[in-house]
């Protein structure tokens, strides 16, 4: 599964677990308007670390936090290289 699909399916899984209604996922969706709260993001980052084997927040020194869903996906894709 691609990084993008992994992230999207985990977001949908976490939203379902937390009984949170989220906006349809697309690249220009602002994370702050996605419906996901900070706990959801915390869980997402932890599960992505388990699935992908890395946490780009821990490894990149100067992190500008992703603003959109597209940024978030790109952030993980870049860290994979």
């Amino acid at each position, binding site marked *: 599964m691609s990084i993008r699909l992994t992230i999207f399916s985990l977001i949908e899984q976490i939203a379902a*677990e*937390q009984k949170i209604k989220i906006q349809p996922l697309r690249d220009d969706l602002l994370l702050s308007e996605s419906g996901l709260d*900070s*706990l959801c*993001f*915390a*869980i997402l*980052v*932890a*599960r992505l670390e*388990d699935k992908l084997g890395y*946490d780009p*927040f*821990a490894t990149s020194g100067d*992190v500008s936090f992703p603003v959109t869903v597209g940024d978030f996906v790109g952030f993980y894709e870049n860290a994979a290289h």
Partner: protein
Amino acid sequence: MLWGANHAIALADLVDGTVLNQTDVAGRSIVLATHDQLAAAQALVALDGAARRIVICPPDLPLAHLAEIATDAEADAIVTDRDEADFAGHDLPPRLACKGPLRPRQVATPIATEWVLLTSGTTGVPKMVVHSLAALTGAIKPPQPGDAPPVWATFYDIRRYGGLQILLRALFGNGSLILSEAGEPVADHLHRLAAHGVTHISGTPSHWRRALMSSDCNAIAPRYVRLSGEIADQAILDALKRQYPDAAVGHAYASTEAGVGFEVNDGLEGFPADVLRGGGDPAFKIVDGTLRVRSRRTASRYLGRAPQALMDEDGFIDSGDFVTERNGRYYFVGRRGGIINVGGLKVHPEEVEQIINRHAAVKMSLVSARRNPITGAIVVADVVLHEPATPGEASDILKQDILAFCRAALPAHKVPAAVKFVSSLEMTPAGKLVRQNA
């Protein structure tokens, strides 16, 4: 009798005879640092009433710490069965050999010996906690006429508070004690207990979970099963009752500093609110969420160069154990040092483990913090299953089921973000789960 793994002594042999060869323990401060547990038991009986102070060192105490302990305890001698070569390079008081059969000398005028125990579970040099024999034995009821003498066993080493309680129960109850042996496989230990006809047996919930994971737990049929040292949750109490239906299963609330607080024998986790009422001895109160204890069974003070205060001005010791009340019963939720901070919300690992452990597929669990860029930390769980899961879809479904089980019982920030199945969990020498911040 006292049964070690390799030899045994009759307690009656300890009543008179000669002691330690040397006569210079009387009135002295003694550090007891034996390798062998049986030798330690004999030395304790020999030294009480004669020495001014006995500092009881657990077998895993690093030698580097021994020198500091000896200095702070103003030790006159170290009683040991170790080879002199073990101590090379360490600046220590004179050694007194503790080998072969030891017998206490009759002490003409026994003195009130200080029994000093070392704390466990912290890094660095352990703290020294001063007790008296009266405090240590304060919760031990005298044997009733007609009671069959107990054959005690404990998974603890007797040089820790929980194990020393059992040595003293065996001695004061005219019973016997089967000692544990470091490194002995669980199955061998259980069969040794069975061979000696164990009737009363104590350990931490972690000790018990490990014993129950061995089919050899069928070898013993105790009358009394005791848990202490960690939170006894409903899952382990129920598992022990299923395994030993004829046994009384009880859990004791005790710690090195606070002594034996109370025993709970109704088969349920937590303790009835009645325990907090009365204000007699022991007396309990809850301040800022933690249980405080005042009784004649607690330690009297810390020993050392700059000892911190053990009690508040009213004589209460802060156990550091958080409790919460639900429907007239109190439950332990965790320890002060172990709190996980998830985005400003507090989580006690133990309260999450208690829920996970109730899941039918789960044998035991360890909840810990994982650092997280969003919330600072997040809760994760390592889980040991009854039946190992085969990796793949079935394993993923089971993880989802355990998480759903948690979500039904806990607020969202307390539910683990991730569950990992592991084959075992590491235990400290004191028989407790190894925790990050314990």
